[in-house]
C-alpha cells in the first residue's frame, strides 16, 4: 500500500500524514531549526501568518483537501495541523 497524495481508495495512516506534514513544514522553514510534532508554528518555528497560509496551500495541494476558511483558528502545533489534515482526508468536505 502506498501513502502520498490521497488519490484512489488507499487512505494514508495517521502516522504517514503526520510525517508528510512535518516534511512540508520543513520545506517552508527558511532556516534550520529543530522540528517535531510538538513544535509550535509561530512560537517555535517563527512562522508569520503569511507562511501559515503558504503551508495551508501546500497541504491542500499535497493531500487534495480543502481546509475550511476558519478551520485552523485554534491550531498551534504541527501535530494539531496533522490531526486536522487527517480528519479532512478521512471525511473530505466536497471541494468547491
Amino acid at each position, binding site marked *: 500500500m502506498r501513502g502520498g497524495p490521497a488519490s484512489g481508495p488507499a487512505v494514508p495512516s495517521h502516522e504517514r500524514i503526520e510525517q508528510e506534514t512535518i516534511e512540508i513544514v520543513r520545506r517552508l522553514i527558511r532556516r534550520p531549526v529543530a522540528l517535531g510534532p510538538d513544535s509550535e508554528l509561530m*512560537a517555535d518555528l517563527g512562522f508569520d501568518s503569511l507562511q501559515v497560509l503558504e503551508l495551508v496551500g501546500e497541504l*491542500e495541494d499535497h493531500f487534495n483537501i480543502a481546509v475550511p476558511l476558519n478551520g485552523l*483558528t485554534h491550531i498551534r502545533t504541527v501535530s494539531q495541523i496533522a490531526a486536522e489534515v487527517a480528519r479532512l482526508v478521512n471525511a473530505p468536505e466536497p471541494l468547491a
Partner: protein
Amino acid sequence: MSESTLFAALEQAACSGRSIRVLEQIDQPLVLPYETLRREALVLGGALRARGLEPGARVALILPDVADFIRAFFGIAAAGLVPVPLFPPAQAGDLPTFTRQSGHILDASRASAVLTSGDIAPLLDVSGASSAACILTLDALRDGPALSAAVAVTSDRTALIQFTSGSTAAPKGVMLTHGNIEANTAAIRHNLNVRPDDVGVSWLPLYHDMGLIGMLMTAVYSTANLVITSPVQFLKRPTIWLEAISKYRGTISFAPNFAYALCLRRVKPSQLAGLDLSSWRVAGCGAEPVRAETLRAFADHFASTGFRRSVFVPSYGLAEHCLAVTFATGLKVDVVDRAVLGRESRAIPVVNGSPSVTVVSCGRPVANHDVRIVDDEGHPLPERHVGRIVTRGPSVMAGYFENAGATAETLRDGWLHTGDLGYMTEGELFVCGRTKDLIIRQGRKYHPPDLESAIADVQGVRPSGVVVFGITSFNESDTVVAVLEARASSPVEDIAEHVRRRVRETAGLEIDQVIVTPPGTIPRTTSGKVRRSETRARFEAGTLVAGDRGP
C-alpha cells in the same frame, strides 16, 4: 435631485448590466450582477430595519467570504446604517488577538450589531467582547421584508467608518461621508482614466481602504466589471492573482509592494507559460513603502507574459483621505545623499558615489486635491526639504468617530496631517517615513526602518523580527530600544553587542537597550509585518517578553 450615496452608485451600476465575479477557483466564478446585489441589498436592509436598527447606527461586518461581505455592505448601506468593516480571524493560532482587537473596535464604534458568519459568531460569543452589540448571521437576514427603496440619506452623512489596522489600545475610526467616497473615486477615475469597460482585479482585503475604496468602490462608481478573490486565496496561491488578470483580461489591479515580491518568490517558471498579462494597464503599488528593486525584478521576471514596466503606478494614500492622494505614472526614482538627508532633512541628488537612499516617486496629487510639505509649525517647506505631508480636498474625512481630541490633532486649518514624512520636487511626492515613529536624538532624526534593516543583517538575528523605536521623555533625548528575535537554531554569543556595534557603525547612533527575544515575540499584522507601536506599547507596559512562552 438625488443625492450621491453608496446605494445610488450601486443603482447606477445595476443599470449597466455589469457584474462582480468572485473567484474561489480560477474557473468557477460566482457571478454577482450589480442588479442582483441591488435587489439583495434591499432585502437585507429591510431585515436590518425590521430588527429595530435605526439609520445612522453602526453595524460591524466580520465576513471573510468576499461575496457575503459585498452583499452585507450594500445591505447595510440600503438601510441607511453605517458599515464598520472588521478583519476576520487569522488562519492559525491567533484567536486571542482576534477577540481582543474585535472587542476594542466594537466598543469604540458603539456598534449596535455585528453581521458575521455562522462559524465566526460562536468565537464572538465566547469572548464576551460583543456584549453591547447583537450578533446577526447573514443567513438569518435573507427573508427581508424587502425595502421598496433605500433609506434616504444625504451625501454629508457618514457612509462608512474605517478602523485603521493594527491599532489595539485605542483604535481610531475614520468617518467617511458619502461625499468623501464620491470625491475620491471620482479623482481615482479621472487620474487613472477609468472607463466602464475597464476590468478591475483584486484580492485585497475589503476591510482595508485599498481593497474597499480603491477596488470595490471604484469599480461600482465606474460601473465597471470587477473580478475579486480573497486575501486568503492569494496568500495560499499567489498565482491566482495573475491568472485572474490573464483569464479575465484585467486592466487595473493594485497591491502592496510585498505582493509583487511574493509573486517573484512563489510563481514558478513553469506557471509563466500560461499567463498573458498584456491587458494590465495600471499595476498600482501602495499601502506600504514602494521598493524600486522589487518592481524592477517583477517586471523582468514577468516580461515574457507581456507585462510592461511602464504600467506601474506607485501611489500614496491613507484611510483618513478615503484612499488616494497621489498617483505616479511609471516607476521613477530619486537617489539622494544619505548623510544630507539624515543631517539636514534635505533630499539632494547624490554625487560622486556617496552613500545614498533610493526613494520612489509617488507622483502628483489627484484632481481637486492639494498636497503640501510643512515644518513642525505648519509652515510650507521649499522643494526637496523633508517635512510633514499634509493634504486638502473633498476626500478628507469628517473626523475620527467620537474622538474630538484626535480629530483636532489631525485636521488643522483645513489640512489633514497625515503623520507621514516626505518631500516634493517638480510637483511629485516622495514619501520617507512616519513622524510617529521618528527617533530624534540630540537634534538628529533617525528613521526606524533604516536602523531595522541594518540590524537585520547581524548574524543570529531573524531578519523579519526586528523592531526599533524611541521612548520620548520630556526635555530629554529619546531613549532608543531595539527588540529582536534571535534565531532559535544558531545562538550567537553577545548578539546585543554585535547589534549595538552595527548601528553605531551604520547610523552613528547608540542604542540604549537591546532586548533579545525568542521567535514569535514581536507582534505582527495579519500580513506578517512587525507592529512597531504595539511592540513599543507592550515594552512600556512590561508585557513584551513575559508572554506565553520562554525560549
